[in-house]
């Protein structure tokens, strides 16, 4: 524990890390689009964070952080796919997706808060399926075992729950807030 005043570089790096955290859900979604396995994707999110920290000095505050971090995330994901031969979409498709004009969203905080409210509106079994999938990192066959039902019905539940959650967050974003 020491109280040395932070150097300008440290302050800059901390700012850049703060920006990363703001965009972390978007980064995670983007990496998951290329690497669907949660734990592999988690590693790549972490590598992206480390790279962002290391290269913080090259980022100029005021320019687009979203574009900068997207480039790094994309590079890290492709690197991981090539080096470790993850199952992913074809190179051609990944390229087409990468070229698609689409900015990372900056409003993750709000969307996370709204998502929590929407999750509370799910019926218990749907909620449990989502928790098993996203919190416990189970895939549909395991979830089916845990819930004593078919994989098919888990698939239906998950995709309906996702549709509901997406609509719910959108509705809440659009509606008058508080």
């Amino acid at each position, binding site marked *: 524990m020491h109280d040395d005043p932070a150097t300008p570089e440290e302050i800059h790096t901390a700012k850049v890390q703060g920006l990363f955290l703001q965009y972390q859900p*978007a980064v995670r979604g983007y990496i998951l689009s290329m690497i669907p396995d949660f734990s592999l994707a988690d590693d790549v999110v972490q590598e992206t964070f480390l790279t962002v920290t290391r290269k913080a000095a090259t980022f100029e505050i005021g320019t687009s952080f979203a574009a900068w971090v997207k480039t790094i995330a994309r590079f890290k994901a492709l690197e991981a796919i090539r080096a470790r031969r993850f199952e992913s979409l074809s190179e051609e498709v990944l390229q087409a997706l990468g070229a698609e004009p689409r900015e990372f*969203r900056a409003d993750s905080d709000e969307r996370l808060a709204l998502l929590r409210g929407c999750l509370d509106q799910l019926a218990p079994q749907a909620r449990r399926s989502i928790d098993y999938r996203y919190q416990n990192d189970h895939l549909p066959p395991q979830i089916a075992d845990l819930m004593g039902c078919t994989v098919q019905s888990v698939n239906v539940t998950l995709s309906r729950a996702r549709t509901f959650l997406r609509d719910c967050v959108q509705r809440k974003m659009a509606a008058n807030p508080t």
Partner: protein
Amino acid sequence: MFDEARLERLVSAYFDQELTVEEKCELEAMLLSSSKARQLFLDRSELHGLLREQAMQAGGANLLNEVAREEKKVVPFARRAWIAAGLAACVAFGWWLLPSGKQAADGGIAKTEESHNEVALLDRAIDVEWDGPSFAPGAALPKGLIKIRKGTLQLDFYSGARVVLEGPASLELLSPDLARLDSGKLTAKVPPPAEGFTVMNANLRVVDRGTEFGMSVTGANDCEVHVFNGEVELQGDVPESTARELFEGHAVAIRQGKSEAIAANRESFVDPSRLLQAAARENEAQWEKWRTTSQAFRATPDLRIHFDFEDLDPAAMLLRNRAAGADEDSHGTIIGCDILAGRWDKKGALGFAKTSDRVRFRAEGSAPSVTLMAWVRVDSLPLEHNALLSMAPEKIGEVHWKIDQAGRLLLGLRSSGEFAYTSWERLESPPVVTPKEFGRWMHLATVIDSESGTMKHFVNGSEVASGQMKRRVPVQLGLANLGNFDASSPASPTSGLVRAFNGRIDEFALLTRALAAEEIMSVLDRNPFD
């Protein structure tokens, strides 16, 4: 063009790692052929990432508010421990949503799993010193050990048996009609529906046959059973000579493996009517103490509104603002509401149940910092938002203070005039009002401090959430509703929203100053709740 429903299914299967080789080719072909398909894919990825992010943050409460400060803690890469999996049956399709996404009466949402473990209600606790986990009167007691060093507890088992436990004592609650007394004294009053209620000790089982009995355990082999009324049956490992059935007026003392028939002695156990009187006296003493301190509280600097809900007159619709120097215009007007008991039998409170129920009042001016405090008893959270206070509708500085359906305490402070999510400074606590808290009094406080740019929520004096204000907007005082929400006019987009509170309020204060945590705690110390 592509088949959108098919694409949705393939994207879902891709995320869940279930694509067959053929399906993967099909998905790739779709993505290559259409920008719209790629946009849809990326859009679904966003939600997927958001869900995963949410799941990783769940449990690490308030991560969002601490993001800027403690980046080390935030990098949430550690894999969360797997949650113990329960077995649940899926029913037919269609249960994944609540009807129309609204607040169904059955809740569907309310988390009540723990209620399976609850076996008794703690009705009273007099002069009690707990040894181990403590409970407040009104609490639902789960299965498990209850230990007290001194004092008296009255427990109402869900079977209907009423047990008075005298400390020092250790009682294990096993089910709604079974308990084990390891040490101490109890009396059990068992009405017909609870017949069969059983108390065990190490060696024997006392099975009630519709009566009132007392039991005293002083050691593993020392026990007395007294029957005051009706009949009990003794089962288990009791000395040969012991009568297996025991009738009114009779008692048995078992010591060191020998039993002795004795006369039942009601005097050696606590008298229920004395218990009731003691409880009533304590109740009144606490109310008296509150009254004294509440009068002193009126002179607190910067206290603008203080409703104590005492001396309510059903005919007058008037709720007096007791803050020192308050003018007539700041009194509240009661619309609807029932006059009910508050924290103590003699304490007044207003009950809010109908959608019309509210207290309207007006405070003047604006203030950079404000503290809101209320003693509330939430009876249920039927609506998405259940308003405690709403003030100055649609003005910059408008305040919404409310509890959402999941029991989170929410603050919204309007910092711009548009009807948009981003117009609000907001602070959200973790769920603090769970079904366990329903029907019980709690102290809620929220501090808006525009000078330091912080907002904080407190429950029973403990900070449960804090956050930074992005825009330091002063709080606009003005027309306010306690326990309800009003749009500024019928033309407003918020007109018609129902956010009525369901429960009771028996004290409310608004100060134009940010109280420190210690000051909030001292308010609680002065107004203890039983």
